[in-house]
């Protein structure tokens, strides 16, 4: 009787625990799903399963009416319990720390954020890459303001107004740009989704960086090759400070700040050679590329001293440089 009662208690407890876990999980999930009934059933199932387990365990280790006749109370393997516990606990701690170390970082959560933009979105690969528009054609005030503006709809309409482009091109893209024309006619903004977010308590002046010779590439990556823009850097404080402590490596000549292909070639497209000076080829017969050392960079004819001079002053490291 007692046994049954305790078994029921345990199973109830299990049902309760699993149920509440499910409930919590539910809250994190998408708001569109409402499988509340299904979940209740699942909880019952899990509960029953566990109850069966308890029954089996109690069959294996029976104790009769509270008298533990000849059998020892604890099985022999339990002698190893302290050792096992030691490793489990310590391993658990290590795992938790490692987990936090890896997961609880902007690098894990932020990098790769690639939200869907309204309608057909904006293809940087076509505009900035293939067509070669300068970044500043649209982000006009990046050199003057701390805020790099997203262009007004009227800027898009400069090309995408009807009959503006080559007829073939226009007809090919007519449907895709209709949302621009609609927004323009209604004088309503297009609700672009913000990707690169610096928190409100931190200030990032675009103008100061761009004018000092920090390329767009440093923070935004090879955006001229992105059909859909995604975040490539963590934008965390440590990442900012890495550059502020050692800015020279990340500087490019001022005329190349927005030329991201040039920056990529300069920094990364070094053909890998082996000891004998032969070009290393990959499986497809293409030369393997590797990052270029700072000393090997050409700087488009600028000397490293000239580059550093664009800073005018060492980048600030104090808290109030960004937080105020």
């Amino acid at each position, binding site marked *: 009787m007692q046994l049954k009662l305790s078994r029921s208690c345990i199973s109830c407890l299990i049902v309760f625990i699993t149920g509440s876990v499910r409930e919590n999980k539910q*809250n*994190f999930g998408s708001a569109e799903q409402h499988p509340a009934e299904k979940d209740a059933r699942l909880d019952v199932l899990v509960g029953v399963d566990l109850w069966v387990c308890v029954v089996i365990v109690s069959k294996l280790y029976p104790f009769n009416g509270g008298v533990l006749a000849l059998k020892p109370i604890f099985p022999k393997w339990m002698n190893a319990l302290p050792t096992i516990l030691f490793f489990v606990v310590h391993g658990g701690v290590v795992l938790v720390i490692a987990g936090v170390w890896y997961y609880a970082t902007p690098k894990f*959560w932020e990098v790769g*954020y690639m*939200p869907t933009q309204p309608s057909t979105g904006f293809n940087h690969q076509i505009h900035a890459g293939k067509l070669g528009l300068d970044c500043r054609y649209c982000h006009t*005030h990046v*050199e*003057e*303001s*701390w*805020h790099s*503006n*997203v*262009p*007004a*709809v*009227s800027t898009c309409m400069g090309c995408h107004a009807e009959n503006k482009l080559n007829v073939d091109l226009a007809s090919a893209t007519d449907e895709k740009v209709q949302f621009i024309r609609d*927004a*323009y*006619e*209604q*004088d*309503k*903004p*297009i*609700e*672009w*989704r*913000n990707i690169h*977010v610096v*928190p*409100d*308590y*931190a*200030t990032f*002046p675009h*103008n*100061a960086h761009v*004018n*000092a010779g920090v390329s767009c590439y440093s923070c935004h990556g090879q955006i001229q090759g992105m059909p859909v823009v995604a975040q490539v850097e963590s934008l965390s404080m440590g990442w900012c400070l890495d550059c502020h*402590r050692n800015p020279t490596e990340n500087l490019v000549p001022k005329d190349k700040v927005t030329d991201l292909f040039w920056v990529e070639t300069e920094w990364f497209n070094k053909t890998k050679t082996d000891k004998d000076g032969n070009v290393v080829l990959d499986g497809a017969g293409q030369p393997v590329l590797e990052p270029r050392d700072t000393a090997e960079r050409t700087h488009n004819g600028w000397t490293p001293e000239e580059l550093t*001079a664009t800073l*005018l*002053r060492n980048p*600030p*490291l*104090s*808290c*109030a*440089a960004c*937080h*105020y």
Partner: protein
Amino acid sequence: MSNLDQCPSTIDKATGSTKSSIAAKDDGVKLGKVSGKKYWRSLEEYTGTQEFTEFVHREFPKGASMLGEATRRNFVKIMGAGFAIAGVAAMPGCRRPDRKILPYSKNVPEDIIPGKALYYTTALPLPGGGVEGLLIETHTGRPTKVEGNPLHPNNQGKTSAFAQASVLGLYDPERLKFPVYNNPTRGKLDATWDDFNAWQKTHFAKFDENQGEGLAFIVDKKSSPSRQRLINAIKARWTKASFTMWNPAESRGAIDGSALAFGSPRFTSYDFSSAQRVVSIGSNFMDEGPEALKNSRTFASTRKVLNSGDSMSRLYAVEAKPSGAGSLADHRYRVAPSEIHNFTIALAKAVFSHTGVNATGLPDATVTGMTPKVIAEIAKDLIDHRNHAVIVPGDDLSPECWALCMAINSSLNAMGNQVTVTPMGADLSGNANEELAALTAQLNAGRIDTLVTLYANPVYDAPGELNFPSAFARAKTTITLNDAMSETEFASTWSLNGTHYLEAWGDAAGADGSLSIIQPMIAPLYEPAHSDIELLSTLAGDEDTDGYTIVRDSWALMGNGSVGSSGFESSWKRTLHDGVKSTQDEGGIGNLSMTKVLMAAARKGANNAPGQGSMDVMFYTSNNNNGQCANNGWLQELPEFGPSVVWDNPILMSPNTAKALGVLPEHSWQDEFNPYTKQQMPQAQKITVTLNGQSMTGAAWILPGMADNTLAVKLGYGREIVGKVGYSVGHNTYAIKPSTTGMTTRGASVKKAGGTYTIASTQNHWSLEGRHSLVRAMDKVWWDKYGNETKVVKDAVYGLEHSTLNAAEMIGELSHTPPNISIYENPMNDSTGDPDPTKLHHNKALDREVPPRYTQGPQWGMSIDMNSCTGCNVCTIACQSENNIPIVGKNEVAKGREMQWIRMDRYFVGDDLNNPDEILLQPVACVHCENAPCETVCPVNATVHGDEGTNDMAYNRCIGTRYCANNCPYKVRRFNFFDYGVVKFNGGLNPNYTSVKADELFEKTVAKDRTFNQNFIPPRLRKKLDEISKMQYNPDVTVRSRGVMEKCSFCIQRIHQARQDVKIEGIWTEDDQVGPIPDGFFNVACQQACPSGAISFGDILDPESQVSKEKESGRSYLLLGYLNTRPRTTYMMRVRNPNPAIRAFEHDPMDHGSHGDHGGGHDTGHDEHNDGHESDGHGETHGAAYIDRAKQYFDQGYSMSLKVLS
């Protein structure tokens, strides 16, 4: 208390004090014999009561760290609710917030660069005439900050507190949003402007037939050419229509007096820059009047001595209530308004006896508290400085008295030199009180059919004896236009929503004849809304009633060519850009009729001194400007000059008078029981004031320096229908304001009404008890002797210059503190072990050679001149506006939780509680110590030092331990006990706020949901997030949340902005690494606003910068320099310039008596001196200076701690 203005070791030169009888209230007073001068801020501090001692020993006042009414049960209840709500609220927070970017679409404003502020000129018309030129900072179309227009001749880039705070009025969520029609049968109905226009066309048609019979207008008194043109047009159309130019706080003295002296009303303008002797007769010339800012500027220019021997003006102030002018005066006399008249007569006789004017007709007049010899000496001093001496009469003197002052000016040759007069238009010179009284009679007789009120609120602010509200109700139709909710709006048939001055076109004429255009910064927030000129134009039947057209038409009529011509357009554009078109006319000297003035003055005779049964009453307006700004929280929470009272208008009187009446304030925390829940609010006694048969009940509060038997009554409080902030704050004092006299009157009687009333006063908050020499002053004769002297002190690691003390430092403790070894590594400390400032050092973190701290420019510093600060408080408001500082409400202020970063410390000087010798003002914000005590105690490094010498707060790091505030010797850190900044604080903003009536009045506004304290709810759950109020915030500054410490940041956002601008503009050259931001390239907010230029800010490594020059002056000293905190903000000692014939100079502050001669005595004398401090016999040895027990204890502790350190 206890701030000695001289070397502490010389304080044995006891002068023998006359202890006030009030001080006897506390037996434990340890004043003893006081030498030098004593500095105190309040009655409690003066008497050293138990409560005050307890108050200052706590970092925050008792209860400041409590949650509401903090019993434990309450706490559990509150926290329970908080957790429950937080649990619900936390869930959606786990997802990445989806942030949108909304760029412009089709219509892109041409000039707007997102992220960059744009500045436009406009102007603020002042009530009663005059104008302030402004430059408004706008961010993507919304105005956020008011600054002065540097090109405007009146204020030259400076502003008043009223102008600074006006931007908050624009975003007042309780403004009128649409017209309301009060239907006689159906009650109040929401309406539109179209409804109104349709209605008015038929309604006003009848006036075409009877020439406007029964039509009356009340407009606020200001000088606007466009409005005057439209008024004339209406007068021409309806000849019988009457106009009342209403100004509830009008002083008649200057207007009627100038009419008496010069034949017609004149505006009087002063220029003090060439004045050497100034006598202010009941005048608050640096705080009031259209040219207050100009007066501040020109007068301050005569006080900024930098070196010994520099010339300096001398100011005599004869006044009833302490004012900014009185605080700067070298001789201040407290004289009741009635007797100010007598003083003027006596002074006139004395002056005329020298100049040969026959003044025998003038009566003999005596003044209480001033001997004839003093008056004769003043007169002699003026005569000696003829051509450079000027009398400034107060605007509310009697006309005869005012004219007599001008007569004195004339005989001193001040006319044309320091004083100029310009004709005053009829729109300003009319007698508002008489006009309103006449209108009231018409209303009561039932002769007014339609009453139109524009931007005036007579239902509230008409003198009580007119009983205007009932007269107003007798008009058949009333139409009222105003930008904010008001009593008159509420009582009207048509209540129309008007524009704020930042929303509409307009123009304003300055007192000197300059013309300013009021340019809108933003389209009306609640469209459609109309300005006064637009409504007048509609009523006048014009076709185009757009404000832009009206103003341009007026501009054309003022001789700028016809609209559209090239000459017109260029002058229009130039004026829009500059904000002002200056006049070419220089004011005239007027044609003063001496005999007429003397005859009038003789006829007037002398006044009797006021007595207890018949007191003098002076009405005055202060921060909230006659009640118009009652819903402006910044102005409500701004401590008033003098009593430092916020959110209230107690009736002020001298301590003697209050004692005689038995209405001295009480303090509620004397209750020993339950000390933790007891609120620490000072209690004022309620009194009933009766004047001319009208009476009101108010609270009595004391103000040292007030004339005896005089009541100072602040106007503009006790409003009923204004909004949540201003509702029922204080008492309505218009009830006793007479309709026949101006702002000063006689014959009031006071009765104790019984009961007490809570007052929130900041005068004791943030006290630095037990610290010496916070404020310092020196007579000019000693300044001339010692001003350029310096002393090299061995081991003094904390001087302004290395090991060198200047004159101001020598009279502080600095030359008396023992050798000090700093725990801070600072190359400027000059001690062994500190880095060499000339050499590079290896930085481990950066792994490269770097110069030591504080040696590379720019290094920011500030200097505050106590010789020119007038206590106008504009710095506090400018800072509040720039840095998104919240308001907290009366209850919170009373608990010591006010948030303003700049506090205005006001010290009374001397031993007489009733008649302090002088008043010293010291604005204190974070002083940005190089060796900052706050930084070492922060457990999370939230407050750290910047490379440029600023002490920075990283708000997002702060966890709210408040250790920093505890360790700050200056008490300048402010803590967000609640989410003051996120929403408009609703938990006790206004303790008088009761929901019943207010809900009825504002059912369409935000006045609901007040049943529980909203501050305990997480921000995202608050229903009433005040979107409109948020628009005022400066986007460059973080809005701090609950649990975060904050303080002055040296406007770090402006510093960064300037640095970026300088870089991008290429002003920062490569080889110019030191001092790259030119001096004056930017201003910090307080410096930018300060009318007297008392605040300077800049790079202290740049020897050419203004701040460096001021810091080099012998007047410059460090606040608590002996603590070796090395503050970056320095203060400049007050130099007094008393008349030796009236007051003997103080004894030599450097005379060290037994210490031997000044020069060498100190270097060798340190050790002995230190012993002296430690020994109990200190008092006896030095002849019993003021040292109380507690203070002595601290001194010992301090000495001991130094011993431990060394």
